């Protein structure tokens, strides 16, 4: 077989200007002229926007007028527009896989400054594509059915909203949450900005709706441990940790907690960030879903010594809900799509010792203050210091672990607004004088700026300057027993000392400590900062590079509740779009065996990570199961006899590309 038009290939080359994105650096005119000189090229054109309708129509018209049978489009990354040009090729009556794209934008005009060098590079790449495309074969996309069930990972507001949206569309949803209850961070908040509606009032109805919904299987205290398969056909393993109280029989009467031999709660309560106490058998918070207690084997006497009176078992009586012998169980489910809504963790303020968190008892994080303000919190809604006093002055330090080269570079987006909210609530609850220490006040949201203006009118103080330190060294008797915030007030250009009773650190949001493990588990990417990476920051904000896996909420980056809910809805509808399409088309880049050449050495069999290669004992030949092959091509490269080939990435195609880029025209 020979390229260069001898076997009847008639190539059309299309050079896109992309406005000035490409044409500004690459000499598109000379590139198109160069294209015309290449063997086999019948038409070579440049056009302002190839991806536009007229651009695509150009291709179709040329196919009709010049009987083209191969198309080369030199424009942006194939990951952006390969589908567009394949469709245009198909509309022209050709097999869509007779089209090949050359990336002269992301890989050329955007990264080089010298016009000549960039144009030379573009020419090499176009030459390679023209050589390659001659070897393209007509291919068919593979169709695989989509399993209608969906897995949602994470039961915060993002996961809850996504699960409910899907379930309301009559799809079955598995909602997996690793904590004993759903609700996430939002369940800990008191009020939400800027409307000041109570978080529990808007969240808990949704939580109970999840529990009640016939289409939702809720697994709390559970973790995904393995994910196999691909879009439409994922096989997921979920580990369900024992809570030692049977969810099937428990009715949530809480009498077991009442009856526990510990009359007083004794152990730090995780839900209240250690500000309150709980018993070894507990429920995270009164509205927890499911309303089923958990036994902590670390603190329960029965687990520690086996000599407990087991008053809890007695209290449960006939129902026999408490089961000390419960063990971890493993569930395996099949789903077609996965929504990841694993959320965030708050910045650990201990990493900034100059703010004295963990050293000075009256330095709190913002999340702790949320719990203090919350009526169902450890102080029943009273903002009091650890010694029981009511604070008369409070300082809120913004940007703790955000916008800082030494910790996290990003803006956590919600801290300004929640700090304003806390300032308002603290003032409301205690009448204290409240100081905000800020770098910039960022209020870009509906009603946000108005809320800021309201706070200014309420008499909350705003001092522009990043807090330098919090210490307890008084310089005069009025500072005795106070926390002293040192700050440069950048509006008056002076260092100031503000003595306060209580310091609130507005901690930022950061990716979960195990985000990288989760990312690997689901085979997706993270951005440099560790947030899950979306497929395209603007055009595919909830998609990932792995088809069938979608992102919702803060696991993708810091965002507030409205944005989280919007994203969760988007993720759910992306999944619904796939489910309703009933099947998905996969790239036909699978490997196949040329039986007559196969020597039966079995080298490939062990290499395949998907066990797609079997060995036919009777014929002594390898056989690739197309349905299992994911198209990595590892076996192709390894086959010593060259009998394994790969659609779209045939050896000849790549050898031609090598020749092409190295100017062997």
């Amino acid at each position: 077989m020979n390229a260069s038009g001898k076997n009847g290939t008639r190539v059309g080359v299309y050079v896109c200007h992309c406005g000035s994105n490409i044409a500004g650096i690459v000499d598109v005119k000379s590139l198109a002229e160069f294209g015309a000189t290449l063997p086999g090229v019948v038409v070579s054109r440049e056009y302002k926007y190839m991806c536009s309708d007229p651009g695509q129509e150009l291709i179709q018209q040329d196919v009709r007028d010049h009987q083209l049978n191969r198309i080369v489009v030199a424009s942006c990354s194939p990951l952006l527009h390969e589908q567009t040009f394949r469709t245009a090729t198909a509309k022209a009556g050709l097999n869509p896989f007779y089209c090949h794209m050359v990336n002269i934008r992301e890989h050329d005009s955007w990264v080089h400054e010298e016009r000549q060098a960039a144009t030379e590079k573009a020419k090499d790449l176009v030459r390679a594509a023209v050589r390659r495309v001659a070897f393209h074969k007509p291919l068919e996309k593979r169709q695989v059915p989509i399993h209608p069930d969906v897995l949602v990972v994470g039961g915060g507001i993002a996961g809850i909203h996504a699960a409910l949206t899907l379930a309301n569309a009559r799809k079955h949803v598995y909602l997996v949450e690793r904590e004993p209850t759903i609700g996430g961070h939002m369940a800990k908040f008191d009020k939400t900005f800027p409307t000041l509606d109570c978080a529990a009032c808007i969240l808990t109805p949704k939580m109970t709706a999840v529990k009640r919904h016939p289409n939702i299987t809720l697994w709390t205290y559970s973790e995904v441990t393995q994910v196999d398969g691909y879009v439409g056909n994922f096989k997921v393993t979920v580990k369900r940790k024992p809570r030692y109280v049977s969810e099937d029989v428990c009715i949530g009467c809480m009498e077991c907690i009442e009856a526990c031999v510990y009359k007083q709660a004794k152990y730090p309560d995780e839900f209240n960030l250690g500000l309150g106490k709980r018993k070894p058998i507990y429920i995270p918070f009164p509205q927890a879903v499911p309303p089923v207690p958990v036994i902590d084997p670390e603190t329960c006497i029965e687990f520690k010594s086996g000599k407990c009176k087991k008053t809890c078992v007695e209290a449960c009586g006939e129902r026999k809900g408490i089961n000390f012998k419960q063990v971890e169980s493993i569930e395996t489910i099949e789903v077609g799509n996965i929504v990841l809504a694993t959320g965030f963790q708050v910045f650990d303020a201990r990493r900034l010792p100059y703010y004295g968190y963990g050293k000075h008892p009256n330095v709190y994080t913002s999340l702790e203050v949320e719990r203090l303000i919350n009526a169902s919190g450890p102080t029943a809604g009273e903002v009091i210091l650890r010694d029981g006093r009511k604070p008369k002055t409070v300082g809120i330090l913004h940007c703790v672990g955000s916008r800082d080269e030494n910790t996290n570079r990003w803006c956590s987006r919600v801290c300004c607004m929640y700090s304003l909210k806390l300032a308002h609530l603290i003032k409301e609850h205690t009448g204290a004088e409240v100081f905000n220490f800020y770098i910039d006040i960022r209020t870009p949201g509906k009603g946000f700026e108005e809320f800021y203006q309201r706070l200014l009118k309420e008499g909350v103080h705003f001092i522009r300057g990043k807090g330098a330190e919090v210490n307890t060294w008084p310089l005069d008797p009025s500072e005795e027993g106070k926390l002293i915030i040192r700050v440069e007030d950048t509006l008056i250009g002076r260092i100031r000392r503000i003595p306060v009773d209580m310091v609130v650190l507005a901690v930022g949001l950061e990716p979960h400590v195990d985000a990288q493990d989760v990312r690997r588990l689901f085979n997706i990417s993270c951005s440099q900062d560790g947030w899950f990476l979306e497929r395209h920051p603007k055009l595919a904000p909830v998609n990932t590079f792995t088809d069938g896996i979608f992102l919702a909420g803060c696991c993708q980056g810091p965002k507030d509740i409205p944005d989280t809910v919007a994203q969760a809805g988007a993720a759910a509808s992306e999944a619904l779009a796939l489910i309703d399409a009933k099947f998905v088309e996969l790239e036909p880049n699978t490997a196949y065996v040329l039986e007559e050449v196969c020597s039966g050495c079995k080298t490939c069999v062990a290499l395949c990570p998907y066990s797609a290669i079997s060995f036919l004992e009777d014929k002594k030949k390898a056989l690739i199961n197309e349905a299992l092959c994911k198209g990595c091509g590892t076996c192709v490269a390894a086959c010593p006899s060259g009998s394994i080939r790969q659609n779209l990435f045939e050896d000849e195609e790549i050898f031609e590309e090598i020749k092409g880029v190295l100017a062997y025209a």
Partner: protein
Amino acid sequence: MPEKKPESSSGSPNGFEPKIVAFFCNWCTYLAADLAGTSRMKYAPNVRVIRVMCSGRIDPQFVLDAFAKGADGVLIGGCHPGDCHYQEGNYKALRRYRLLKRVLREMGIEEERFHLEWISASEADRLKSTVNNMVEKVRTLGPLRLETKSELFPEEVTVS
């Protein structure tokens, strides 16, 4: 249009501009190169990228062929260990790379001309520095001139 000289491709005194063929995997390194583009990073224009689905697809013959056809250097880019989209294709690539590096050494092809780097989809910076470093190194080495090298082969194997 005025032509600016970027620091990355300052050019050597003898005007030699190395030609480097790169094989990037579709999921990590090709994406990193796309990201470098969308971030408008500037790097040396000497690399020609050939996309493969996985670094595990890179047949040693591709590398040998590139050198034989006139490449001054070959760069392989894949996902970090443990991050392969296809689970373990990059490990296979690494094995072949190690072996091939020894073969190339025997052929008189300098070590710096063949390089493998793990570059994830978010590491546009790393892509830029990898390309620039490689171009610099190969530029210092000069053209490969495989034909001159191969003329020397008979002398080398003659037992004196």
